[in-house]
């Protein structure tokens, strides 16, 4: 929808999260470069760097130096001072130090970008097959899940990992919270991670958190039979800025995929929509959590 270079810049004075700012800045720089007919190699050379640096910048995966942004805009023939100052304002937002920087030692490098995207998103849709989504985990459940994956981890490190998860959840009650719309498989709700008591408390918390005006939870019951996403969990992050595409996040055992090309994200949006349309409605899902909690007791 924004064929004009510069058309996707945010209005003056708007603040976006650092990850969204990087993505917006990167996609604008790509447009300007392509419009100027300049190769990534030439652009990399111009800022005393490489083709791959340009590619990482344009994908919004790295921070931006003001000097690089200025030099690139000059190379691309962008003379409009309003565009330049909007781009530099974005570069400033892209450099904001986020709270998770202090946890850099325990966060896998492939997970950190997700935290930035999650914090910048306006809508988060997830499908969770095996575990309750991180944004909805109780502390006890988070502790049990964390210990599962990492044998021989020190208690201090577990504490810090759990602290990250709990801190993330502040997003749900922030001043301008994202809309979080999660579909969860009954399997994720029945697996008593941390024991029956922990799971019961987790289910009660789901019934409660679903009452938040910006949270929608839906359950795919076993009764529904096979479904479209039997393959695994995924999250779709959406950003309010028109120029920033949806990002599909898929976590694996030792890494993660971040998809943003429409050819790939269309497929996940389709599956998410089918799941949302065929699972229990939000109103039917809340009593489902309570019923399941009672069933676990017996």
């Amino acid at each position, binding site marked *: *929808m924004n064929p004009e270079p510069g058309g996707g810049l945010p209005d003056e004075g708007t603040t976006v999260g650092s990850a969204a700012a990087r993505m917006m800045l990167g996609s604008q720089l790509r447009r300007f470069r392509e419009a100027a007919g300049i190769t990534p190699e030439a652009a990399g050379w111009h800022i005393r760097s490489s083709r791959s640096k340009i590619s990482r910048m344009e994908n919004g995966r790295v921070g931006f130096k003001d000097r690089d942004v200025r030099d690139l805009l000059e190379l691309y023939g962008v003379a409009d001072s309003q565009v330049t100052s909007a781009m530099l304002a974005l570069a400033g937002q892209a450099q904001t130090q986020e709270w998770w920087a202090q946890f850099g030692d325990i966060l896998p490098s492939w997970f950190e970008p997700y935290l930035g995207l999650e914090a910048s998103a306006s809508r988060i849709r997830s499908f969770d097959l095996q575990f309750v989504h991180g944004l909805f985990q109780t502390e006890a459940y988070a502790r049990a899940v964390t210990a599962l994956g990492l044998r021989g981890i020190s208690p201090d490190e577990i504490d810090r990992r759990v602290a990250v998860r709990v801190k993330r959840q502040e997003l749900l009650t922030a001043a301008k919270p994202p*809309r979080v*719309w999660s579909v969860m498989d009954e399997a994720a709700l029945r697996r008593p991670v941390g024991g029956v008591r922990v799971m019961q408390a987790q289910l009660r918390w789901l019934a409660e958190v679903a009452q938040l*005006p910006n949270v*929608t939870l*839906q359950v795919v019951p076993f009764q*529904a039979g096979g479904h479209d996403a039997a393959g695994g969990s995924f999250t779709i992050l*959406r950003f309010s800025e*028109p120029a920033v*595409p*949806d990002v599909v996040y898929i976590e694996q055992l030792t890494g993660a995929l971040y998809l943003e090309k*429409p*050819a790939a994200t*269309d497929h996940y*949006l*389709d599956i998410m*929509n*089918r799941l*949302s*349309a*065929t*699972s*229990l*409605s*939000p*109103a*039917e899902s809340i009593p489902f959590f309570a019923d399941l909690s009672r069933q676990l007791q017996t």
Partner: protein
Amino acid sequence: MSTQDVSAGSQGSDTTAAEPPSFDITRAHPARVYDYWLGGKDNYEADREAAEQFIEAMPNILAGVRANRAFLRRAVQYLAGEAGIRQFLDIGTGLPTAENTHEVAQAIAPESRIVYVDNDPIVLAHARALLTSTAEGATAYVDADARDTGKILEAAVEVLDFSQPIAVMSLLVLQYVPDEDHPEEIISRLMDAVPSGSYLTISDTTTEIDTERVTNGTARLNARLGPARSTLRTRAQIAGYFDGLELVEPGIVPMPQWRTLPNPLVVPVFAGMGRKP
């Protein structure tokens, strides 16, 4: 519970019927094409392609869909404000965007009750998840085709009080009801069911403004749509929807001109509002 699903139970259980049109992402779908024109991201390649085809024939469509949202806002503000209406029956919900009917109405009167009607399971899933009411009011979602007025009314009775005035809304929806399904009869059945003091609000595409471009754009769009087809109508046909009602000033006019400052925008859509005497 301020948010309800008045057709609960119909979901998810029926796997034998043919897949609903919106499940097919290889053909364009009206709600998703409209979403793309509005700058939304709930659309797929086939929708974007069809939407771009229309834009090529008629670039003004982008201003047109925004004008329709602005019309919705002005109309609901009038209904909830000056007209004092507290109940809304919104036929053809579409994919949620900014300033949906209940948000505009409940900003003025939080106790407003809104029934959204759509027959598309993905539109309904979005409405249930995202169009949530204030605590004082109510939003409900009815899974029904616009043509199935019996089903619409049967479900709406559970949420709306039919002894009190109701605003029936149908914005850029009737174009998807073909002539042989008699859109004028759908409207008259709905308006027969609501009491005196109720309102009808319509926006509908027309052959009579910017004729060549809209005809060309619509032909391109129809060639790419799934089962739904868009039918352009004359001003007289659109005026016919309001038979027996008292038109609210300024009557049936080009949509950007309805109760607002002079607007030079040319959009092939007529809009109007009528009150049931």
